[in-house]
């Protein structure tokens, strides 16, 4: 039997494993539910600001049979907050979200302070990774980063930001360079602390919002700059992009991550046809996970495998009220299939 870490490593390297992996990275791809928090008596929002609690909740995700990975943090506001944005830490059912921006225009980039990795929630995340690294062995630890466009749109009003991509093009690039440098520093520190892989989610940098030209000029450029600057010795990288891919398949294929992940609007079959040589991750409907039943989730899981997904995961962050039984059904479905196959081989 492969350990979850060995399996994921093989898949990310493009090799054949015994079965698809089953992970949910964390960050934007929320994998914590109310039922899970009740099981281990660790709750948000406390788990966002306390490394021990954060690590405990991350461990529960694997120990309760949901996914074969650990992942931190559980939100996408850490980077923006450390650059000065005001963040509401949310509740036990709402994620933290930005309530106050730092600057009004890309041209004010010099007013931003760099992320201090030795303080604030950046340190909480790094400490949580250190705890996971120290106390666990065979399960991959995923460090999460908010993508460059989404971070840029959390530090200032995103509508203004989007407009300035065109109106103040050169200054927008300088702003993106600063943002990306901060993400690189945070990502490198996560790997140093013990993260096996880095997942980047960029929900605000979609092809539908930006169009192919700006998607390439901004999203692809800065995601790649970030990926290129991470240490070589990591296990791999995952990039999750939201929305339709049809306008931007060509551009997406230029993203240099080990795996690409899409939300449920993208049919896995279609993604597989357009991205033949890529490791693909996804995309069990989070709607089915919240409102369906385990049988339906297992059916969707099988369909993802058949359509060419290499790493099975929810299509988006889980709804907090998703029943644990449904969440566990993805992994249960995969292992049942595998046992069934082995039975036939013998």
């Amino acid at each position, binding site marked *: 039997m492969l350990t979850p870490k060995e399996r994921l490593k093989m898949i990310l390297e493009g090799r054949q494993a015994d079965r698809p992996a089953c992970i949910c990275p964390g960050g934007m791809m*929320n994998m914590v539910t109310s039922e899970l928090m009740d099981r281990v008596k660790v709750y948000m929002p406390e788990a966002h600001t306390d490394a021990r609690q954060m690590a405990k909740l991350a461990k529960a995700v694997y120990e309760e049979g949901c996914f074969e990975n650990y992942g931190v943090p559980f939100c996408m506001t850490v980077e923006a907050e450390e650059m000065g944005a005001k963040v*509401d830490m*949310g*509740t036990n*059912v*709402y*994620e933290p*979200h*930005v*309530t106050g921006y730092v600057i009004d225009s890309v041209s004010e980039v010099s007013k931003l302070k760099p992320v201090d990795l030795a303080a604030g929630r950046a340190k909480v995340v790094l400490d949580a990774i250190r705890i996971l690294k120290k106390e666990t062995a065979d399960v991959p630890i995923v460090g999460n980063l908010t993508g460059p466009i989404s971070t840029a749109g959390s530090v200032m009003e*995103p*509508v203004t930001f*989007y*407009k300035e*991509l*065109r*109106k103040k093009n050169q200054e927008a690039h300088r702003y993106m360079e600063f943002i990306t440098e901060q993400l690189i520093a945070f990502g490198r520190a996560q790997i140093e602390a013990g993260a096996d892989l880095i997942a980047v989610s960029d*929900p*605000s940098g979609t*092809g*539908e*919002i*930006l*169009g192919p030209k*700006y998607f390439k000029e901004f999203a692809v450029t800065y995601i790649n700059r970030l990926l290129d600057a991470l240490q070589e010795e990591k296990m791999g990288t995952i990039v999750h992009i*939201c*929305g339709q891919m049809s*306008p931007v398949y060509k551009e997406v294929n230029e993203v240099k991550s080990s795996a690409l992940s899409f*939300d449920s609007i993208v049919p896995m079959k279609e993604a597989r046809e357009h991205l033949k040589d890529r490791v693909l991750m996804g995309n069990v409907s*989070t*709607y089915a996970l*919240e*409102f369906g039943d385990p049988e339906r989730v297992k059916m969707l899981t099988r369909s993802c495998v058949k359509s060419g997904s290499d790493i099975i995961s929810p299509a*988006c*962050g*889980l*709804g*907090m*009220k998703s029943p644990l039984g449904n969440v566990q059904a993805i992994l249960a479905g995969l292992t049942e299939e595998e046992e069934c196959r082995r039975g036939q081989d013998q």
Partner: protein
Amino acid sequence: MSSKEELLKRLSDGVVEMEEDDVAEAAQEYLDAGYLAFDGIMEGLVDGMNRASELYEAEEYFVTDVLLCSDAMYAGLDILRPHLPEVSGDDKVTGVIGVVEGDTHDIGKNLVKIMLETAGFNMIDLGRDVPLARFVETAKEENAAFVCLSTLMTTTMGGMETVIRLLDEAGIRDKVKVMIGGGPISQKYADKIGADGYSQNAVEAVKLAKRLLNI
């Protein structure tokens, strides 16, 4: 001096081409020449915005483009609107729009608001991260015909169902149509929570509002 047709075309083209300054200039010239502000808005600015939404539907324009087009449209509106003859706001159908509590992603909501305003609706924008009860209070106070709820996050979509329940409890559910939208939302979800309609994008939202309200 330019003819009325030429100026209307400049207004419309300026919106499509996102030329805010040129639209403002053309709007001023148009007024100075003594033409009717109403025609300038409808046949110039709104015409341009409609062309922009067609390009958006055809996937030639994207969200960033439409946002800049709407800036140009509003630049023209600021100049022409004060010259409209006094009409009572009562003629307009009022809608309440906002992003539900817990979520601050409002690009989609802004786009829907722009399109609905362009289509002639009086939209009251509650912004983002809106406490759920406020949708109901505002709908009541403003005598709104419909409420538009948006969210981009699976964690907050449950708030939409709560708003519908609160409308029910306030006794105004039958007077207010509920439209929902956003990344994780689907027709299936709308059916499940008893919303009157779902639209996938801003252009569809206008069609949906008109259909629900028999306009």
